[in-house]
């Protein structure tokens, strides 16, 4: 097949809503786009373990601690599913990790914010996982097959993540005035960074056009953000917490809430490495990687030794 036929074939597959599989021909830019997106997603999962990991030793009860451990372990697992999916496109895992460790690959900006109180663990589960799930539900229908299948697993497993977070918020909101204030403070700090998780406005999103054309994304940043706000406002109201946005109000004509713009300057700052915890997060991950070096070396040398004994 010549180039034009290959391209037509690819386009036809997309228009029939068929998945693109690892050995299928695909345009170089599609491959690059998918590798970039899946690896950033994978990096977000493993960096996302850190803000929550911060509270494992200080969880207020054994139940909360077990739940948080299971959740953080899931995030690690989700990172591995995604690295596996990215590797099907021919980029080795070491290479992807190196791009993260050298600051060349991005991860979700939300994880560059600190977890200052126990309520933040509630807010992360409720809001951050809620926003992530909204994105991931869409990605179950992404055009790249291994990515879509990883998303199906991830969505299934995430179902408890958001509920456990909301549960924490419910308990705090019903608790003492101090506890309620802690929950409200956490919502105040996490609300805007959560809205930024959906990415820049459609008009200013450089990657969006191809992502939609190639059916990597099925819905735009603004559409997902709007749906998230519509779903989350009533959840806050139900437990007596207030979304920190004076301009937020129901708009009957669009059957959704109007809301303020997040601070995009802050978003760009955090993306470019100047958020409150960028250095700490990356530093912690690199340190963990370096401290695991002897384990990797021991495994290899044990394996070689066994081979030489067998030979």
């Amino acid at each position, binding site marked *: 097949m010549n180039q034009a036929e290959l391209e037509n074939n690819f386009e036809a597959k997309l228009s029939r809503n068929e998945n693109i*599989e690892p050995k299928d021909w695909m345009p170089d830019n599609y491959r690059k786009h998918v590798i970039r997106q899946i690896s950033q997603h994978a990096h977000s999962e493993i960096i996302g373990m850190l803000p929550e990991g911060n509270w494992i030793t200080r969880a207020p009860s054994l139940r909360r601690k077990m739940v948080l451990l299971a959740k953080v372990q899931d995030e690690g697992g989700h990172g591995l*599913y995604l690295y*596996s999916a990215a*590797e099907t496109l021919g980029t080795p895992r070491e290479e992807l990790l190196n791009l993260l*460790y050298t600051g060349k690959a991005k991860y979700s900006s939300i994880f560059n914010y600190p977890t200052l109180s126990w309520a933040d663990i509630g807010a992360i589960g409720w809001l951050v996982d809620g926003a992530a799930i909204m994105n991931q539900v869409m990605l179950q229908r992404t055009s790249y097959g291994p990515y879509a299948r990883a998303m199906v*697993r991830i969505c299934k497993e995430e179902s408890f993540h958001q509920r456990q977070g909301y549960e924490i918020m419910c308990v705090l909101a019903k608790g003492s005035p101090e506890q309620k204030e802690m929950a409200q403070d956490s919502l105040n700090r996490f609300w805007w960074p959560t809205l930024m998780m959906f990415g820049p406005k459609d008009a200013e999103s450089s990657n969006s056009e191809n992502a939609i054309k190639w059916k990597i994304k099925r819905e735009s940043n603004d559409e997902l953000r709007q749906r998230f706000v519509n779903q989350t406002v009533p959840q806050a109201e139900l437990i007596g917490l207030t979304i920190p946005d004076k301009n937020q109000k129901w708009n009957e004509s669009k059957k959704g809430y109007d809301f303020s713009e997040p601070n995009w300057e802050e978003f760009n700052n955090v993306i470019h490495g100047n958020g409150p915890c960028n250095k700490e997060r990356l530093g912690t991950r690199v340190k963990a990687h370096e401290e695991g070096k002897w384990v*990797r070396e021991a495994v290899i040398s044990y394996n070689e030794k066994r081979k030489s004994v067998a030979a």
Partner: protein
Amino acid sequence: MSKEKDNQGLVWEVFVQKKPGQPFVHCGNVHAHDSEMALQNARDLYTRRNEGNALWVVPAKYIVASSPEDIGAFFEPANDKIYRHPTFYNVPEGITHM
């Protein structure tokens, strides 16, 4: 860090059987240096919620796959044999359980 290249071992494809008697279904892969490590990694990654009754791990390099380009010719022999499907046969109106 480039010195650490190739420190991830082989890629092993993972197949999970949910219940005895059911087929093993491919669910993803793991990296491991030997079969024991591959099984343990697969258990930790793919069966955290009792999804598994049994696991298979197979070095990915030993899996031979049909190539998507040849899909038409490769599976063509089955195309003109509609008599392999029950819908090919006419049965009287109103017949049930057949």
